[in-house]
Protein backbone atom coordinates (compact mmCIF):
# COMPACT_ATOMS: atom_id res chain seq x y z
CA UNK A 1 0.00 0.00 0.00
CA UNK A 2 1.13 3.55 -0.76
CA UNK A 3 2.79 5.17 2.25
CA UNK A 4 1.45 8.68 2.87
CA UNK A 5 3.99 11.29 3.93
CA UNK A 6 3.43 14.58 5.74
CA UNK A 7 5.74 17.11 4.09
CA UNK A 8 4.28 20.38 5.29
CA UNK A 9 2.40 21.74 8.31
CA UNK A 10 0.90 25.07 9.35
CA UNK A 11 -1.05 26.21 12.41
CA UNK A 12 -2.99 29.16 13.73
CA UNK A 13 -3.83 28.42 17.36
CA UNK A 14 -4.55 30.37 20.55
CA UNK A 15 -1.10 29.37 21.86
CA UNK A 16 0.89 29.97 18.71
CA UNK A 17 0.57 31.14 15.13
CA UNK A 18 3.55 29.15 13.83
CA UNK A 19 4.86 25.65 14.51
CA UNK A 20 7.67 26.67 16.87
CA UNK A 21 5.51 28.89 19.05
CA UNK A 22 2.74 26.29 19.07
CA UNK A 23 5.16 23.59 20.18
CA UNK A 24 6.75 25.79 22.85
CA UNK A 25 3.27 26.63 24.09
CA UNK A 26 2.29 22.97 24.33
CA UNK A 27 5.48 22.11 26.22
CA UNK A 28 5.06 25.02 28.63
CA UNK A 29 1.81 23.63 30.00
CA UNK A 30 0.29 27.10 29.67
CA UNK A 31 -3.38 27.51 28.75
CA UNK A 32 -4.72 30.25 26.49
CA UNK A 33 -7.98 30.49 28.43
CA UNK A 34 -8.97 34.07 29.24
CA UNK A 35 -11.82 36.58 29.15
CA UNK A 36 -13.37 36.99 25.69
CA UNK A 37 -12.29 40.28 24.12
CA UNK A 38 -13.89 40.10 20.68
CA UNK A 39 -17.43 40.88 21.87
CA UNK A 40 -19.36 41.95 24.94
CA UNK A 41 -20.12 38.95 27.13
CA UNK A 42 -22.09 40.76 29.84
CA UNK A 43 -25.25 38.85 28.88
CA UNK A 44 -23.45 35.50 28.90
CA UNK A 45 -23.08 33.06 31.78
CA UNK A 46 -19.77 31.91 30.23
CA UNK A 47 -17.42 34.82 29.52
CA UNK A 48 -14.16 33.17 28.52
CA UNK A 49 -12.55 31.17 25.74
CA UNK A 50 -9.21 30.54 24.05
CA UNK A 51 -9.12 33.31 21.45
CA UNK A 52 -6.58 34.21 18.83
CA UNK A 53 -5.86 37.88 19.34
CA UNK A 54 -4.92 40.71 17.03
CA UNK A 55 -1.44 39.26 16.59
CA UNK A 56 -3.00 37.23 13.79
CA UNK A 57 -2.90 39.52 10.77
CA UNK A 58 -4.81 38.17 7.82
CA UNK A 59 -3.30 40.99 5.75
CA UNK A 60 -0.10 38.96 5.60
CA UNK A 61 -2.00 36.40 3.49
CA UNK A 62 -4.70 38.19 1.49
CA UNK A 63 -5.57 41.72 0.34
CA UNK A 64 -7.95 43.90 2.34
CA UNK A 65 -10.54 43.46 -0.38
CA UNK A 66 -10.31 39.66 -0.26
CA UNK A 67 -10.31 39.64 3.53
CA UNK A 68 -13.53 41.67 3.61
CA UNK A 69 -15.28 38.96 1.60
CA UNK A 70 -14.10 36.00 3.66
CA UNK A 71 -15.25 34.84 7.08
CA UNK A 72 -12.71 34.54 9.90
CA UNK A 73 -12.91 30.75 9.58
CA UNK A 74 -11.42 31.10 6.10
CA UNK A 75 -8.88 33.72 7.18
CA UNK A 76 -7.50 31.26 9.72
CA UNK A 77 -7.78 28.21 7.47
CA UNK A 78 -6.23 29.84 4.43
CA UNK A 79 -3.36 31.23 6.51
CA UNK A 80 -2.58 27.82 8.05
CA UNK A 81 -2.81 26.11 4.67
CA UNK A 82 -0.53 28.67 3.07
CA UNK A 83 2.02 28.18 5.86
CA UNK A 84 1.83 24.41 5.33
CA UNK A 85 2.41 24.79 1.60
CA UNK A 86 5.41 27.05 2.25
CA UNK A 87 6.74 24.47 4.75
CA UNK A 88 6.49 21.74 2.10
CA UNK A 89 8.75 23.56 -0.35
CA UNK A 90 8.35 23.40 -4.11
CA UNK A 91 5.60 20.82 -4.68
CA UNK A 92 6.49 20.45 -8.36
CA UNK A 93 3.03 19.01 -9.01
CA UNK A 94 0.51 19.41 -11.79
CA UNK A 95 -2.16 21.71 -10.25
CA UNK A 96 -4.82 19.33 -11.55
CA UNK A 97 -3.30 16.66 -9.29
CA UNK A 98 -3.40 18.80 -6.13
CA UNK A 99 -6.46 18.28 -3.93
CA UNK A 100 -7.82 20.17 -0.94
CA UNK A 101 -9.83 18.64 1.90
CA UNK A 102 -10.89 21.12 4.58
CA UNK A 103 -12.87 20.36 7.71
CA UNK A 104 -14.98 22.70 9.79
CA UNK A 105 -17.64 22.36 12.44
CA UNK A 106 -19.93 25.26 11.61
CA UNK A 107 -18.33 27.30 8.81
CA UNK A 108 -18.78 31.07 8.71
CA UNK A 109 -20.83 31.58 11.83
CA UNK A 110 -19.59 35.11 12.52
CA UNK A 111 -20.83 36.29 9.12
CA UNK A 112 -24.11 34.41 9.43
CA UNK A 113 -24.85 35.96 12.81
CA UNK A 114 -24.04 39.47 11.67
CA UNK A 115 -26.19 39.10 8.57
CA UNK A 116 -29.15 37.70 10.48
CA UNK A 117 -28.95 40.81 12.67
CA UNK A 118 -28.88 42.96 9.52
CA UNK A 119 -31.91 41.12 8.14
CA UNK A 120 -33.85 41.58 11.37
CA UNK A 121 -32.92 45.24 11.78
CA UNK A 122 -32.83 46.48 8.18
CA UNK A 123 -34.74 43.97 6.08
CA UNK A 124 -34.16 41.54 3.24
CA UNK A 125 -32.73 44.10 0.83
CA UNK A 126 -29.78 44.81 3.14
CA UNK A 127 -28.57 41.21 3.35
CA UNK A 128 -25.08 41.00 1.84
CA UNK A 129 -24.65 39.28 -1.52
CA UNK A 130 -21.49 37.81 0.04
CA UNK A 131 -23.30 36.05 2.88
CA UNK A 132 -23.54 32.70 1.10
CA UNK A 133 -19.95 32.52 -0.19
CA UNK A 134 -18.66 33.67 3.21
CA UNK A 135 -20.68 31.35 5.44
CA UNK A 136 -20.75 28.13 3.40
CA UNK A 137 -18.75 25.36 5.03
CA UNK A 138 -16.79 24.67 1.84
CA UNK A 139 -15.56 28.28 1.50
CA UNK A 140 -12.13 27.55 2.97
CA UNK A 141 -11.51 24.59 0.67
CA UNK A 142 -12.63 26.65 -2.30
CA UNK A 143 -10.53 29.69 -1.44
CA UNK A 144 -7.35 27.67 -0.92
CA UNK A 145 -7.84 26.26 -4.42
CA UNK A 146 -8.68 29.63 -5.98
CA UNK A 147 -5.64 31.40 -4.55
CA UNK A 148 -3.17 28.62 -5.25
CA UNK A 149 -4.69 27.41 -8.52
CA UNK A 150 -5.18 23.82 -7.36
CA UNK A 151 -7.80 22.21 -9.64
CA UNK A 152 -7.85 18.65 -8.28
CA UNK A 153 -10.50 17.08 -6.02
CA UNK A 154 -11.79 19.59 -3.50
CA UNK A 155 -14.30 19.17 -0.72
CA UNK A 156 -15.19 19.91 2.86
CA UNK A 157 -15.73 17.52 5.73
CA UNK A 158 -18.31 18.55 8.29
CA UNK A 159 -18.24 16.14 11.21
CA UNK A 160 -18.19 18.58 14.12
CA UNK A 161 -15.24 17.99 16.45
CA UNK A 162 -13.93 15.15 14.26
CA UNK A 163 -13.80 17.19 11.04
CA UNK A 164 -10.08 18.01 11.14
CA UNK A 165 -9.09 14.37 11.64
CA UNK A 166 -11.61 13.14 9.07
CA UNK A 167 -10.22 15.62 6.55
CA UNK A 168 -6.68 14.31 7.02
CA UNK A 169 -7.83 10.70 6.89
CA UNK A 170 -9.86 11.19 3.73
CA UNK A 171 -6.93 13.06 2.22
CA UNK A 172 -4.61 10.14 2.96
CA UNK A 173 -7.06 7.90 1.15
CA UNK A 174 -6.99 10.19 -1.89
CA UNK A 175 -3.23 9.69 -2.02
CA UNK A 176 -3.50 5.92 -1.55
CA UNK A 177 -6.16 5.69 -4.26
CA UNK A 178 -4.01 7.67 -6.66
CA UNK A 179 -6.71 10.32 -7.02
CA UNK A 180 -4.26 13.10 -6.27
CA UNK A 181 -0.49 13.53 -6.03
CA UNK A 182 -0.64 16.15 -3.26
CA UNK A 183 -3.43 16.95 -0.81
CA UNK A 184 -3.72 20.05 1.36
CA UNK A 185 -5.75 18.81 4.32
CA UNK A 186 -6.84 20.12 7.68
CA UNK A 187 -9.52 22.08 9.45
CA UNK A 188 -10.48 25.52 10.64
CA UNK A 189 -12.95 26.99 13.10
CA UNK A 190 -13.99 30.45 14.26
CA UNK A 191 -17.17 29.93 16.21
CA UNK A 192 -16.46 32.01 19.32
CA UNK A 193 -19.39 34.32 18.58
CA UNK A 194 -22.18 35.64 20.79
CA UNK A 195 -24.68 33.04 19.63
CA UNK A 196 -22.08 30.27 19.30
CA UNK A 197 -20.98 30.78 22.89
CA UNK A 198 -24.56 30.85 24.16
CA UNK A 199 -25.44 27.74 22.17
CA UNK A 200 -22.56 25.60 23.41
CA UNK A 201 -23.28 26.79 26.93
CA UNK A 202 -26.97 25.89 26.62
CA UNK A 203 -25.97 22.34 25.69
CA UNK A 204 -24.20 22.11 29.02
CA UNK A 205 -20.93 21.51 27.19
CA UNK A 206 -18.87 24.45 28.45
CA UNK A 207 -16.83 24.95 31.59
CA UNK A 208 -18.30 27.57 33.92
CA UNK A 209 -15.06 28.35 35.72
CA UNK A 210 -15.22 32.05 34.88
CA UNK A 211 -13.33 33.11 37.97
CA UNK A 212 -10.28 31.21 36.69
CA UNK A 213 -10.46 30.80 32.90
CA UNK A 214 -6.78 29.96 32.53
CA UNK A 215 -7.42 26.74 34.46
CA UNK A 216 -10.86 25.92 33.06
CA UNK A 217 -9.82 23.48 30.32
CA UNK A 218 -8.43 20.52 32.29
CA UNK A 219 -8.73 17.24 30.40
CA UNK A 220 -9.09 14.07 32.47
CA UNK A 221 -8.77 16.08 35.70
CA UNK A 222 -10.99 15.32 38.68
CA UNK A 223 -12.20 18.95 38.71
CA UNK A 224 -13.04 19.29 35.01
CA UNK A 225 -16.48 20.72 34.30
CA UNK A 226 -16.71 21.21 30.54
CA UNK A 227 -14.75 22.34 27.53
CA UNK A 228 -13.47 25.81 26.71
CA UNK A 229 -14.15 27.14 23.23
CA UNK A 230 -11.10 27.68 21.06
CA UNK A 231 -10.54 28.88 17.52
CA UNK A 232 -7.91 28.35 14.87
CA UNK A 233 -6.75 26.12 12.08
CA UNK A 234 -4.26 23.43 11.17
CA UNK A 235 -3.29 22.19 7.72
CA UNK A 236 -0.91 19.56 6.40
CA UNK A 237 0.56 18.74 3.02
CA UNK A 238 0.28 15.05 2.20
CA UNK A 239 1.83 13.14 -0.69
CA UNK A 240 3.10 9.64 -1.29
CA UNK A 241 6.36 8.80 0.42
CA UNK A 242 7.88 7.86 -2.94
CA UNK A 243 6.96 11.19 -4.44
CA UNK A 244 8.20 13.11 -1.40
CA UNK A 245 11.56 11.35 -1.59
CA UNK A 246 11.84 11.82 -5.32
CA UNK A 247 11.50 15.58 -4.98
CA UNK A 248 13.84 15.70 -1.99
CA UNK A 249 11.18 16.92 0.42
CA UNK A 250 11.58 16.74 4.17
CA UNK A 251 9.31 13.93 5.37
CA UNK A 252 8.05 14.98 8.80
CA UNK A 253 6.04 11.81 9.51
CA UNK A 254 3.60 9.39 7.89
CA UNK A 255 -0.15 9.01 8.15
CA UNK A 256 -0.11 5.25 8.50
CA UNK A 257 -3.62 4.50 9.67
CA UNK A 258 -7.09 5.96 9.61
CA UNK A 259 -10.23 4.68 11.27
CA UNK A 260 -13.65 6.26 11.10
CA UNK A 261 -17.07 5.14 12.14
CA UNK A 262 -20.21 6.41 13.83
CA UNK A 263 -21.85 5.68 17.16
CA UNK A 264 -25.40 5.73 15.75
CA UNK A 265 -26.46 6.30 19.33
CA UNK A 266 -27.17 9.91 20.31
CA UNK A 267 -26.70 13.29 18.65
CA UNK A 268 -24.27 14.51 21.35
CA UNK A 269 -23.58 11.80 23.95
CA UNK A 270 -20.95 9.12 23.27
CA UNK A 271 -22.11 5.51 22.95
CA UNK A 272 -22.26 3.48 26.18
CA UNK A 273 -18.91 2.09 27.22
CA UNK A 274 -17.19 4.16 24.54
CA UNK A 275 -17.96 1.37 22.09
CA UNK A 276 -17.85 3.58 19.00
CA UNK A 277 -14.50 5.00 20.02
CA UNK A 278 -13.14 1.52 20.78
CA UNK A 279 -13.96 0.29 17.30
CA UNK A 280 -12.65 3.47 15.71
CA UNK A 281 -9.23 3.14 17.37
CA UNK A 282 -9.11 -0.52 16.39
CA UNK A 283 -9.92 0.34 12.78
CA UNK A 284 -7.07 2.85 12.71
CA UNK A 285 -4.60 0.33 14.15
CA UNK A 286 -5.74 -2.35 11.70
CA UNK A 287 -5.38 0.10 8.84
CA UNK A 288 -1.83 0.86 9.98
CA UNK A 289 -1.09 -2.84 10.47
CA UNK A 290 0.21 -2.12 13.97
CA UNK A 291 -0.40 -3.90 17.29
CA UNK A 292 -1.47 -1.82 20.28
CA UNK A 293 1.99 -2.32 21.75
CA UNK A 294 3.50 -0.23 18.96
CA UNK A 295 1.75 2.97 20.04
CA UNK A 296 4.04 5.30 21.96
CA UNK A 297 1.47 7.84 23.05
CA UNK A 298 -2.16 8.76 22.56
CA UNK A 299 -3.14 12.26 21.58
CA UNK A 300 -6.59 12.10 23.12
CA UNK A 301 -9.69 13.93 22.06
CA UNK A 302 -9.68 14.89 25.78
CA UNK A 303 -12.14 17.77 25.71
CA UNK A 304 -12.37 18.27 29.48
CA UNK A 305 -16.09 17.50 29.54
CA UNK A 306 -17.07 15.00 32.24
CA UNK A 307 -18.71 12.68 29.71
CA UNK A 308 -16.15 12.69 26.87
CA UNK A 309 -13.14 12.11 29.07
CA UNK A 310 -14.82 9.29 30.98
CA UNK A 311 -15.95 7.60 27.81
CA UNK A 312 -12.61 8.05 26.05
CA UNK A 313 -10.64 6.75 29.05
CA UNK A 314 -12.86 3.68 29.16
CA UNK A 315 -12.42 3.14 25.43
CA UNK A 316 -8.64 3.52 25.61
CA UNK A 317 -8.40 0.98 28.43
CA UNK A 318 -10.55 -1.46 26.46
CA UNK A 319 -8.47 -1.14 23.30
CA UNK A 320 -5.13 -1.37 25.08
CA UNK A 321 -6.19 -4.02 27.60
CA UNK A 322 -5.16 -2.01 30.62
CA UNK A 323 -1.67 -1.42 29.23
CA UNK A 324 -2.39 1.96 27.70
CA UNK A 325 0.51 4.14 26.60
CA UNK A 326 0.82 7.68 27.96
CA UNK A 327 -2.12 9.93 27.09
CA UNK A 328 -2.02 13.67 26.49
CA UNK A 329 -4.50 16.29 25.32
CA UNK A 330 -3.84 19.51 23.44
CA UNK A 331 -7.11 21.03 24.62
CA UNK A 332 -5.89 22.04 28.07
CA UNK A 333 -3.67 24.53 26.25
CA UNK A 334 -5.77 25.59 23.26
CA UNK A 335 -9.34 24.93 24.32
CA UNK A 336 -11.50 23.04 21.87
CA UNK A 337 -10.91 24.02 18.26
CA UNK A 338 -13.97 22.02 17.14
CA UNK A 339 -13.48 21.34 13.42
CA UNK A 340 -9.81 22.31 13.56
CA UNK A 341 -9.02 20.23 16.66
CA UNK A 342 -8.16 16.98 14.89
CA UNK A 343 -5.79 18.80 12.57
CA UNK A 344 -3.82 20.80 15.14
CA UNK A 345 -3.66 17.66 17.27
CA UNK A 346 -2.27 15.50 14.48
CA UNK A 347 0.34 18.22 13.98
CA UNK A 348 1.11 18.14 17.71
CA UNK A 349 1.69 14.39 17.44
CA UNK A 350 4.19 14.95 14.62
CA UNK A 351 6.02 17.63 16.60
CA UNK A 352 6.13 15.30 19.62
CA UNK A 353 7.85 12.66 17.47
CA UNK A 354 10.30 15.16 16.05
CA UNK A 355 11.27 16.30 19.53
CA UNK A 356 11.09 12.82 21.10
CA UNK A 357 8.98 14.08 23.99
CA UNK A 358 5.31 14.03 24.87
CA UNK A 359 3.96 17.44 25.84
CA UNK A 360 1.95 17.73 29.08
CA UNK A 361 -1.81 18.11 29.32
CA UNK A 362 -2.16 21.72 30.47
CA UNK A 363 -4.09 22.20 33.72
CA UNK A 364 -4.26 18.49 34.48
CA UNK A 365 -3.47 18.17 38.20
CA UNK A 366 -5.33 15.22 39.70
CA UNK A 367 -6.51 12.30 37.62
CA UNK A 368 -10.19 11.68 38.07
CA UNK A 369 -10.15 8.33 39.96
CA UNK A 370 -13.36 7.31 38.18
CA UNK A 371 -11.45 7.13 34.89
CA UNK A 372 -9.36 4.08 35.75
CA UNK A 373 -5.59 3.67 35.41
CA UNK A 374 -4.81 5.89 32.45
CA UNK A 375 -1.43 7.62 32.42
CA UNK A 376 -2.05 11.30 31.65
CA UNK A 377 1.16 13.19 30.94
CA UNK A 378 1.07 16.39 32.99
CA UNK A 379 3.25 18.92 34.76
CA UNK A 380 6.19 18.68 32.38
CA UNK A 381 7.23 17.15 29.09
CA UNK A 382 8.05 13.46 29.18
CA UNK A 383 10.88 12.05 27.07
CA UNK A 384 9.72 9.31 24.75
CA UNK A 385 11.54 7.59 21.95
CA UNK A 386 9.92 8.44 18.63
CA UNK A 387 7.13 5.93 18.16
CA UNK A 388 3.73 5.83 16.45
CA UNK A 389 1.00 7.97 17.96
CA UNK A 390 -2.74 7.51 17.96
CA UNK A 391 -4.69 10.76 17.59
CA UNK A 392 -8.38 10.60 18.48
CA UNK A 393 -11.24 12.90 17.50
CA UNK A 394 -14.87 12.34 18.41
CA UNK A 395 -17.57 14.67 17.18
CA UNK A 396 -21.09 15.61 18.13
CA UNK A 397 -23.28 13.47 15.91
CA UNK A 398 -21.37 10.39 17.01
CA UNK A 399 -18.64 10.80 14.38
CA UNK A 400 -15.37 9.15 15.35
CA UNK A 401 -12.00 9.51 13.62
CA UNK A 402 -8.63 8.14 14.70
CA UNK A 403 -5.32 8.67 12.94
CA UNK A 404 -2.12 6.68 13.39
CA UNK A 405 0.85 8.96 12.82
CA UNK A 406 4.26 7.28 12.59
CA UNK A 407 7.76 8.75 12.56
CA UNK A 408 9.45 9.38 9.23
CA UNK A 409 11.23 6.20 8.11
Amino acid at each position, binding site marked *: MTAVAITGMGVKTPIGLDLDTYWEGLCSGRSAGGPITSFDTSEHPVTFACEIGEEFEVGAYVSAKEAA*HLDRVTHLGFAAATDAIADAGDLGADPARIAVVAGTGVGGLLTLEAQIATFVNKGAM*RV*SPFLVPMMMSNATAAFIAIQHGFTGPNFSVVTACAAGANAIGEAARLIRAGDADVVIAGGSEASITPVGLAAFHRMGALSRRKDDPAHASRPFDADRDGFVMGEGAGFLVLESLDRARARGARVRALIAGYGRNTDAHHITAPSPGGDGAVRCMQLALEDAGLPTSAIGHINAHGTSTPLNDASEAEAVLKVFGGQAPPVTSVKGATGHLIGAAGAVEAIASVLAMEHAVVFPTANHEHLDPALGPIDVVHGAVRPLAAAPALSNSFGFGGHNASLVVVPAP
Partner: protein
Amino acid sequence: MDRNEAFAQLREAAVEVLHVDASAVTEDARFKEDLDADSLALIEFVMALEERFDISVPEEELDGVTRVGQALDLVMAKLPASA
Protein backbone atom coordinates in the same frame (compact mmCIF):
# COMPACT_ATOMS: atom_id res chain seq x y z
CA MET B 1 -27.30 67.80 -4.35
CA ASP B 2 -25.51 68.60 -7.60
CA ARG B 3 -23.76 66.05 -9.75
CA ASN B 4 -20.28 66.89 -8.46
CA GLU B 5 -21.37 66.47 -4.89
CA ALA B 6 -23.13 63.20 -5.70
CA PHE B 7 -20.04 61.96 -7.51
CA ALA B 8 -17.88 62.72 -4.50
CA GLN B 9 -20.25 60.68 -2.35
CA LEU B 10 -20.32 57.84 -4.86
CA ARG B 11 -16.53 57.82 -5.01
CA GLU B 12 -16.32 57.52 -1.24
CA ALA B 13 -18.69 54.55 -1.36
CA ALA B 14 -16.60 52.92 -4.09
CA VAL B 15 -13.38 53.32 -2.12
CA GLU B 16 -15.02 51.84 0.94
CA VAL B 17 -16.92 48.93 -0.61
CA LEU B 18 -14.86 48.06 -3.68
CA HIS B 19 -11.49 48.67 -2.01
CA VAL B 20 -10.14 50.79 -4.87
CA ASP B 21 -8.11 54.01 -4.96
CA ALA B 22 -10.19 57.16 -5.23
CA SER B 23 -8.21 58.10 -8.35
CA ALA B 24 -9.48 55.00 -10.14
CA VAL B 25 -13.09 56.07 -9.67
CA THR B 26 -13.88 58.20 -12.70
CA GLU B 27 -17.15 58.49 -14.64
CA ASP B 28 -15.58 56.47 -17.46
CA ALA B 29 -14.31 53.67 -15.21
CA ARG B 30 -15.82 50.27 -15.93
CA PHE B 31 -16.88 48.33 -12.84
CA LYS B 32 -15.67 44.95 -14.00
CA GLU B 33 -12.55 45.74 -15.98
CA ASP B 34 -11.26 48.83 -14.18
CA LEU B 35 -12.53 48.45 -10.62
CA ASP B 36 -12.40 44.64 -10.39
CA ALA B 37 -16.00 44.53 -9.17
CA ASP B 38 -17.83 41.29 -10.00
CA SER B 39 -21.61 40.98 -9.91
CA LEU B 40 -21.67 40.38 -6.15
CA ALA B 41 -19.48 43.38 -5.45
CA LEU B 42 -21.69 45.50 -7.67
CA ILE B 43 -24.74 44.54 -5.62
CA GLU B 44 -22.88 45.42 -2.44
CA PHE B 45 -21.89 48.76 -3.99
CA VAL B 46 -25.46 49.58 -4.97
CA MET B 47 -26.57 48.69 -1.45
CA ALA B 48 -24.06 51.22 -0.14
CA LEU B 49 -25.41 53.85 -2.57
CA GLU B 50 -28.97 53.16 -1.43
CA GLU B 51 -27.98 53.78 2.18
CA ARG B 52 -25.84 56.81 1.44
CA PHE B 53 -28.39 58.58 -0.78
CA ASP B 54 -31.49 57.17 0.89
CA ILE B 55 -32.79 55.88 -2.43
CA SER B 56 -34.03 52.53 -3.70
CA VAL B 57 -32.57 50.88 -6.80
CA PRO B 58 -34.56 47.86 -8.02
CA GLU B 59 -32.34 45.13 -9.47
CA GLU B 60 -33.78 45.44 -12.98
CA GLU B 61 -32.55 49.03 -13.17
CA LEU B 62 -28.98 47.75 -12.90
CA ASP B 63 -29.21 46.00 -16.26
CA GLY B 64 -26.72 47.57 -18.60
CA VAL B 65 -24.95 49.55 -15.89
CA THR B 66 -21.27 48.88 -16.57
CA ARG B 67 -19.65 52.27 -15.91
CA VAL B 68 -19.44 54.54 -12.90
CA GLY B 69 -21.08 57.39 -14.85
CA GLN B 70 -24.15 55.24 -15.49
CA ALA B 71 -24.47 54.51 -11.79
CA LEU B 72 -24.21 58.23 -11.12
CA ASP B 73 -26.99 58.87 -13.66
CA LEU B 74 -29.14 56.35 -11.84
CA VAL B 75 -28.51 58.09 -8.51
CA MET B 76 -29.15 61.58 -9.91
CA ALA B 77 -32.48 60.47 -11.42
CA LYS B 78 -33.61 59.30 -8.00
CA LEU B 79 -32.54 62.27 -5.91
CA PRO B 80 -35.27 64.79 -5.09
CA ALA B 81 -35.13 67.58 -7.74
CA SER B 82 -35.18 70.34 -5.15
CA ALA B 83 -32.18 69.06 -3.24
